């Protein structure tokens, strides 16, 4: 099954061999190729380069062409301010400045940057036939806010008809944009409507539900698949969002993934999310990102779940962090390691039952022989661990009593304690007399023998 098939099958709730991974690389694409986002979004060549870099680094199953909720607004005459490391911002709202809804024109391919984005989509389709391409469309309520400004919140109460007229127009825009993206080769249309987290369920049902439903029905008749992206605390609207009949709903860390899973699956809808954008992906460590990914996957389960961040990945998201997530998603073995470690951390979170690494190292130093600790998942059950164990045993054989090799399986409490004592971050790892020597790489026999020889020599000299 190709990555593309994996995403498409998961979206329609078919069971698949593994969970698909769709990183929402938007502004981050520019950072990957060292460009300003303001230049990036205006250039087919740069977007293709950025998406290519993301595909090479993160090995995704699906990816958006761009993540820019200002594309339609700009084409519709909203004034926009550009930033180098952030999406552009809408700062002028034509309807608030006296423009009438009747005078707004649905964006054509030659309006604003619409044409550039569609040409980019065509090129990416040709380059990556096996990866699912997402076309992101500004949701009707968010577009309405762009066009009218925050007055829309007052109008919800003061002038309902006006809001309906505006939503009708924004719906037509979303349908047109969806068609452009599908014609250019996108597989999935994601209607991104973060502002629905701001309104109550009553307003959602009155002002958003009928229009969003129409958009998703339209995408279906055009043979596309659809997703509804929200961010922010929109948990109160999840049930109503399900009633809009998208194929998929994707949420951020403000909404409980287990709740979304339960509601979506009950309604025959697939779901995705909600890796933590800032606290783990941007500011966290690789270990925290792996743990976040493993937790999401454990909650999401095997049916109808897509691993993705909650929203557009920040410009400066650490590449290593996203690679760490990618590894956990793509490599069952890595996932098992992360699960085992976090289980252990949970079980001893409140205990001080761990001796310090320093104590151990001083004991090792006293010994006349070298101690080689190999921290593995379980060499009996996992291939990389098995290779590492046999490499170590082969290399140390010639040193006889001078070297003692001990395997610590992190499936056992003892192994996990040892991992913590030795401050080991990755599995499998080789430590000699308490010092990490090879981490997550299986050393060549000669390299390993050389290290052991030198360490032993030093020891005898001391």
């Amino acid at each position, binding site marked *: 099954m190709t990555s593309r098939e994996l995403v498409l099958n998961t979206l329609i709730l078919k069971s698949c061999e593994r969970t698909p991974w769709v990183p929402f690389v938007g502004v981050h694409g520019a950072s990957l190729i060292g460009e300003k986002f303001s230049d990036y979004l205006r250039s087919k060549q740069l977007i293709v380069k950025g998406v290519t870099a993301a595909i090479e680094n993160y090995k995704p199953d699906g990816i958006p062409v761009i993540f820019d909720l200002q594309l339609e607004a700009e084409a519709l005459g909203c004034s926009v*301010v550009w930033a180098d490391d952030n*999406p552009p*911002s809408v700062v002028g709202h034509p309807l608030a400045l006296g423009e009438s809804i009747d005078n707004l024109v649905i964006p054509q391919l030659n309006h604003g940057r619409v044409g550039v984005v569609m040409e980019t989509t065509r090129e990416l389709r040709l380059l990556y036939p096996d990866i699912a391409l997402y076309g992101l469309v500004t949701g009707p309520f968010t577009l309405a806010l762009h066009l009218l400004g925050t007055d829309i919140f007052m109008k*919800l109460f003061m002038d309902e008809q006006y809001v309906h007229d505006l939503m009708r127009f924004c719906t037509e825009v979303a349908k047109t944009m969806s068609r452009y993206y599908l014609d250019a080769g996108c597989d999935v249309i994601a209607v991104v409507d973060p502002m629905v987290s701001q309104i109550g369920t009553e307003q959602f049902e009155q002002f958003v539900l009928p229009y969003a439903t129409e958009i998703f029905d339209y995408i279906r008749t055009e043979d596309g698949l659809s997703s509804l992206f929200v961010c922010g*605390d929109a*948990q109160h609207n999840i049930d109503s969002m399900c009633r809009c009949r998208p194929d998929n709903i994707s949420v951020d860390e*403000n909404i*409980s993934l287990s*709740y979304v899973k339960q509601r979506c699956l009950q309604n025959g809808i697939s779901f995705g999310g909600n890796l933590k954008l800032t606290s783990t992906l941007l500011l966290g460590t690789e270990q925290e990102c792996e743990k976040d990914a493993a937790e999401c996957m454990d909650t999401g389960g095997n049916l109808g779940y897509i691993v993705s961040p909650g929203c557009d990945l920040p410009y400066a*998201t650490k590449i290593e962090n996203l690679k760490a997530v990618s590894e956990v998603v793509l490599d069952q073995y890595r996932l098992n390691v992360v699960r085992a470690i976090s289980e252990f951390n949970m079980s001893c979170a409140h205990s001080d039952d761990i001796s310090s690494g320093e104590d151990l190292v001083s004991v090792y130093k006293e010994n006349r022989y070298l101690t080689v600790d190999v921290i593995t998942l379980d060499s009996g059950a996992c291939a990389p661990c098995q290779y590492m164990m046999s490499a170590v045993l082969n290399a140390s054989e010639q040193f006889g009593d001078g070297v003692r090799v001990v395997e610590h399986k992190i499936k056992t409490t003892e192994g996990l304690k040892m991992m913590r004592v030795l401050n080991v971050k990755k599995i499998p790892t080789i430590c000699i007399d308490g010092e990490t020597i090879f981490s997550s790489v299986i050393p060549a026999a000669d390299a390993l023998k050389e290290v052991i020889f030198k360490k032993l020599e030093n020891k005898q000299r001391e």
Partner: protein
Amino acid sequence: MRLKRSYLKSWKTNRESELKMSKVILITGFLGSGKTTLLKTLLKDNSQEYKIAVIQNEFADSSIDSIELKMTKWNFELIEINRGSIFCICLYANFREELERLVKEKSPDIIFIEASGLADPLSIGTLLNNSDNFHLAGVLTVADPALFLRMSGQVRSINNQIRAADIVIVNKCDKCSKEDLDLTTERVKEINPETSLYYTSYCEGVGDLRALLTQLSEIQKTEIRTEPDIEPGSNEAVLSQRPNDIFSNVFRTPEPIEEATILDFCTSVPESVLRLKGFLRSTEGRSYIIQYVKGDQCASIAPCEPVSISQVIAIGTKKSDFTFFNRLKRG
């Protein structure tokens, strides 16, 4: 000799700036409730005395406000960030870096952040977690009673802003009836029983920063108490001198928490925590307000209006102790 003295002086200045941490105060409130007016009052009354920095969203509610601010003669640093009118936590992602840089370069006593009208204050708070340069000292929320009564319950951010507030400044009182004022007070207290309320028009009379900071919460008093050399009541005591570095940490989760876990959490607040407050949602479907001030035996909880996200802010003297929040996580 002269050289040496100036060297000493610069060394001292450097040392001081190294030791200084800035207090961050978030100013929130729905569109048009008077956030910039409050900011202006605070600057007018305090910018000679304290080193103040302001972070304002350039285009958030009205750009005129920001131009007006720039034209005043008050002494403060203004940083404008361009994030448009939509608020998304992802758009604030590199904001922490900007803050770190500001503190290193200017070491202000206070940083006011005027959040966009649709912002959820505590999600901004998470971006301030565990910094060595600043901590979230408080949240001021401005409310316009007429707007508040009409929109509370309809626009989510309004209630979230009240819920996160240490102080709610009820503004535009001259333009509303006694009944509306009473209703506003009642509604605010329903959402956040522990908040203090100020009543004002044009944000007048709320510019006394020292009083405001003392009011902010017990944290200020705790800080003063642990530093016996400083005369209580002096501005110095409240603002500049701190015996210890203080860190803030906001914990947020949309996953409901078991009540037994909540109780266990209440009894395990580390010594180093000075203050803790927030809201928790339990697996049993109930919501609780939680609070703790150093000296309490344990954190106390009381039933409150339903919340959808559990969020708790802790302020304390030891960053590593904030891992006690892990007790609230699943499993």
